[in-house]
């Protein structure tokens, strides 16, 4: 594998947790809910996902199936994020509280809750939570046949990734199709653009907002699990997610609320995150490399706010609560 190939391969791997986080948040924001709690939901997803796989193995012992472990981890992570998003939805949609404040609270709450669950698991199981190598391979190696993986260049470029890379891309593409092509997707976008319009057209605004926010939160949380189970090596550590959730929020803006663009955006951000390992220039300190994603985020924010295209704007009602009888 040459250096470039390795860079791309690692960029995709590192970008995948971001992709889940971003795509979930896109769905949420498309209904007008700005959920800043992505970091918190990803934390909960990470802790619960690892916990799900860990306790499943403890219960099943030698017979634990890798496929089932992956499934349980996804489910647990999804439920963790969905639970966080449900709290957020109740507060912002039903009680119409300020979305920014609620989202920030969820970020703090989720981070704390995730840390608590992770640390609890660690201390009660003897100071170390990890799953066996047998199960790890289900999370970290490619599910595709060896024949495909061994094709030169194309193999590592396309077929050697873990299962979550393919799952993430699939979800992004499906969501893109859903938002653009389906009737329900059109209604969902209408809710985010102008809830009063959607409401007067007979669309159930509350239901769309709840469903999209909860589903989006769940998808974002899977990203947290993917981070712990692939990049962090299936081990709970104190550092947790290191701001992946915040990057995801920025990436939503970067990809202009388009799930398919999020695929490319996440690979780019993934590359920026590991550049210090792959493209080391002695005169640039590590720290500069590590802040690259954040610098790019700032630059992107500057450019997106300068852009004037009417089609490339955030959903018009993003961040606003909706009340039908508002006068």
């Amino acid at each position: 594998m040459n250096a470039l190939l390795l860079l791309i391969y690692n960029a995709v791997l590192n970008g995948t947790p971001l992709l889940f986080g971003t795509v979930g948040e896109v769905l949420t924001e498309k209904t007008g809910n700005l959920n800043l709690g992505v970091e918190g939901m990803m934390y909960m997803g990470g802790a619960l996902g690892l916990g799900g796989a860990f306790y499943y193995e403890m219960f099943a012992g030698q017979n634990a199936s890798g496929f089932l472990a992956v499934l349980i981890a996804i489910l647990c992570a999804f439920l963790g994020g969905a639970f966080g998003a449900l709290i957020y939805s109740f507060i912002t949609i039903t009680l119409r509280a300020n979305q920014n404040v609620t989202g920030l609270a969820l970020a703090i709450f989720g981070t704390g809750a995730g840390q608590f669950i992770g640390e609890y698991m660690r201390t009660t199981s003897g100071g170390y939570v990890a799953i066996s190598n047998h199960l790890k391979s289900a999370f970290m190696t490619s599910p595709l046949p060896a024949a495909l993986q061994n094709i030169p260049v194309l193999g590592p470029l396309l077929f050697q990734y873990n299962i979550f890379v393919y799952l993430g891309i699939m979800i992004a593409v499906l969501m893109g199709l859903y938002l653009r092509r389906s009737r329900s997707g059109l209604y969902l976008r209408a809710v985010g653009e102008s809830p009063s319009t959607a409401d007067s057209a007979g669309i159930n605004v509350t239901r769309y907002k709840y469903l999209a926010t909860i589903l989006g939160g769940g998808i974002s949380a899977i990203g947290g699990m993917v981070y712990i189970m692939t990049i962090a090596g299936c081990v709970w550590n104190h550092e947790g997610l290191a701001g992946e959730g915040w990057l995801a929020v920025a990436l939503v803006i970067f990809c202009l609320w388009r799930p398919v663009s999020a695929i490319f955006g996440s690979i780019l951000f993934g590359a920026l995150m590991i550049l210090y390992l792959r493209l080391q220039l002695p005169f640039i300190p590590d720290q500069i490399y590590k802040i690259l994603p954040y610098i790019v985020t700032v630059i992107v924010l500057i450019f997106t706010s300068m852009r004037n295209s009417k089609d490339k704007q955030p959903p018009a009602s993003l961040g606003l609560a909706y009340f039908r009888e508002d006068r």
Partner: protein
Amino acid sequence: MESFHAIELRHITKRFGKVVANDSIDLTLDRGEILSLLGENGSGKTTLMNMLAGIYFPDEGEILVGGKPVSIRSPKDAFDHGIGMIHQHFKLVNVFTAAENIALGLSGGGKLDRKAIAVKVQEISDRYGFGIDPNKKVYDMSVSEKQTVEIVKVLYRGADILILDEPTAVLTPQETDRLFGILRAMKADGKAIVIITHKLHEVMALSDKVAVLRKGKYIGTVKTSETNPQALTDMMVGRSVTLNIDRPMPVDPTPRLEIQGLTCLDAEGVKKLDNVSFTAMGGEILGIAGIAGSGQRELLESIAGLYPVASGSIHYTPVGADKAVELVGKPPMEIKKAGVAMAFVPEDRLGMGLVGGMGMTGNMMLRSWRKGKGVFVNRKDPNALALEVKERLEVVTPSVDFPVRRLSGGNVQKVLVGREIASSPTVLMSAYAVRGLDINTSYTIYNLMTEQKMKGVAVIYVGEDLDVLLELCDRILVLCGGQVSGIVDARTVTKEEVGLLMTRVGGGKEDVPHA
């Protein structure tokens, strides 16, 4: 058995907190008939119709559709009963196409079949003569096109009872005529139509019946053929009101503002004002007509020093002085001090000029806070002014310290206009000063303008209602796409001529001399 009414309302009551918006209202509507719903601001017209459209739910009373009692709990229920409402503020998604907007909320297959929708939209469009492009994005549309989309949206759902909330407020006379043609065609088609409007001549021209509400109560229904504007106004206000605007000839008009070749660009470099030249005289009212967004706002703001001027000059001659001063490049504060006042009533009334969270006194202070010495503000004078404005313009507020945000729209406007007039300017600019105000208050404002004119003030009045412009102003300047398409004598010009100028540049450039 006799045929049923399309809609029958029985003892409908709706309260918002302590305010009774609708008090036991009875109303009937038949097929093949156009009913005008008339009433002052806050008389509960829109509230009543919103209950038919499923936006609000009545606290008491009964709604019968086709003779059967129904419960309309959501807009979807309203559609199911064949009721469609076209709201005053369009309910459209800007980034969607016409077809996508029309398809919103309809049941159907999971895949969005844009072609099939476009075909059906075309069909309805041809039937009533709309002519809309199903694939055009809403943000590229004119106001009239947006309204057409709204109407098609309602018809697409198979509505046979249509409610239009102030549909003509934003249309040119030609567009209004076209809309009325469409409404008459729909009436002939057997549809029942309710139209809410403030404009009496439209009521007389279009409707079969007129129902009048006053302060949330139902006053009565009359046949249009058996009534006249004066009688309707009296019903609406509850006492006799004179409907004539007193327009004395300008006395000794002197040039106050001379504007030469004024050109302004917006942030994207698009020309908002293009080589605008005119003279505003002290002692006359200069009306400015034009379709919304033709540069009215930019014109007033550039005179007030709030909008950057690309080229051109604005010469201002103070009272008694014989030398003009250049206003371009001066800060707004100096322009204000020179006596150029602006009362701009934007679409959201609290957006410019007033602070919503403050009371009347606080808002009066925004004008005078610089006068005081030391660190403390003087509350006494603004308080007296607030009381005076409240008295003169009959502002309904519990106290002058009550936050203006919580006053009704009309009252907010009175505070704004009252304050500007009180600063005794030499040039008074007002935009949409009566937007959304009822007849009674509107006439109070017109009279205030005329009073200022007689004091020798140069009044610049940007208005929407052409009938009023023709009655109130001495001269009318028509803007079209940022250019002056004509300056006409308001006493001799017809509404149609002004309407044509509004849509076409170069309809007649000569400056008709006043008087």
